[in-house]
């Protein structure tokens, strides 16, 4: 199988990596760069646990090849708090107890982060629409939506 040399910017740092053709962006992040914040859920684009931002836009990293990300910028949940200081959305998730098992949280945060960047004041419906592709099986969505709404109001 072919191996490709790619140059990719992950959380602001440029990386030069060797990736086999069939390696997903998710596998590259977790297993080449040890960025295990991004989770592997359904591997079919349903659950959104693997959501990262590619050039600022959310994508399911399990449904994208690492080689496709050559030359692009990727932001993962680790990149939301580069100096260990929680981002406003992360802070709001903590304050609203919008976390239970936490498995969906990184993906939820990335979708919320992207939403607030493209629209700093979304309506409840727009928030719901933005996280349709992020499934939570324990906390439920009310607290998550409340948390995102808090940032939207304060922002």
């Amino acid at each position: 199988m072919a191996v490709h040399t790619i140059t990719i910017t992950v959380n602001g740092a440029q990386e030069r990596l060797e990736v086999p053709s069939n390696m997903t962006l998710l596998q590259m992040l977790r297993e080449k760069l040890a960025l295990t914040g991004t989770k592997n859920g359904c591997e079919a684009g349903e659950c959104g646990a693997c959501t990262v931002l590619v050039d600022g836009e959310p994508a399911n990293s399990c449904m994208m090849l690492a080689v496709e990300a050559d030359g692009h910028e990727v932001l993962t949940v680790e990149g939301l708090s580069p100096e260990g200081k929680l981002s406003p959305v992360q802070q709001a998730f903590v304050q609203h107890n919008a976390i239970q098992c936490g498995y969906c949280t990184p993906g939820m945060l990335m979708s919320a982060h992207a939403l607030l960047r493209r629209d700093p004041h979304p309506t409840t419906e727009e928030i719901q629409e933005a996280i349709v592709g992020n499934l939570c099986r324990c906390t439920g969505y009310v607290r998550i939506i409340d948390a995102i709404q808090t940032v939207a109001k304060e922002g």
Partner: protein
Amino acid sequence: MFARPGLPSFDYLRAETADQVISLLLKHGDAAKLLMGGTDLFPSLRDGALHPQVVVDVKGLPGIRDISYDAVQGLTVGAAVTMNQLAQHPDVRAHYPLLAQAAGAVASYQIRNRATLGGNLCNASPCADTAPAALVLEAQFLLYGPNGGRTVPAGEFFLGPGKTSLQPAEFMTAVSFPPPAVGVAAQYLKLGRCKTGDLALVGVAVLGFKDGTPSGCCFRIGLGSVAPTPIRAAQAEEVLASAAPSEEVLALAAEKAMRASSPITDVRGTAEYQKAMVRSLTLRGLREVWQRLSVA
């Protein structure tokens, strides 16, 4: 190598030209699969339904990610244009709101950032959200193959679930939509198991504009998820062409649309329910479009 099985082995190639794609498809036949957004390809690879030796990424072809519009030529959408690109594009929203609405109805925001118009159509799932819109907008599909380019009307493209009129080594480069009729109104109604995010259980696209037919209006109805392919409800359209719209005529047309459908009972719903919903959604769409035509 990895904790999870992940994807099977293949060689990834990025094509730079359409002819390069053709030569790879000719060389590898069924062992080559084209990649655009991958939202249908990757689950098939993972499930073992497909075992390609080569995956050819066509997103880098010139123009394949472009949208262009002018009032005379209409709209041309490159096959690898994403659903979010379509749903958000100012010309698409202004002149083809039905297409923007259908693209925005696909799956989730993340998926719409990757899923492409060409992929949605070529995958030929009966439930493809953009297919009923392509049918009623009377889109033309631009295909390119070993013998050069050709154009196939949307209505002749879908042959069965997963089956299209694409010939071996042929692929879709773009979709062209004729200029919109003056005063056109259209609506896409999608029913899933939940409000958004699901595959369509029933998808109905209704389009109407005033014309010179005996009824004074031309209506087109596209149905998704309720037959082996996306279909036009021709008999319903004939009813609407022959009599001026009234509540009775709209109801009769909705009844005909229901009869045009042939859904199957599956995990998402029974055939009987889907048929009944074709009638309800068609009637709702017709009322909405008729009302907008009346006030225009």
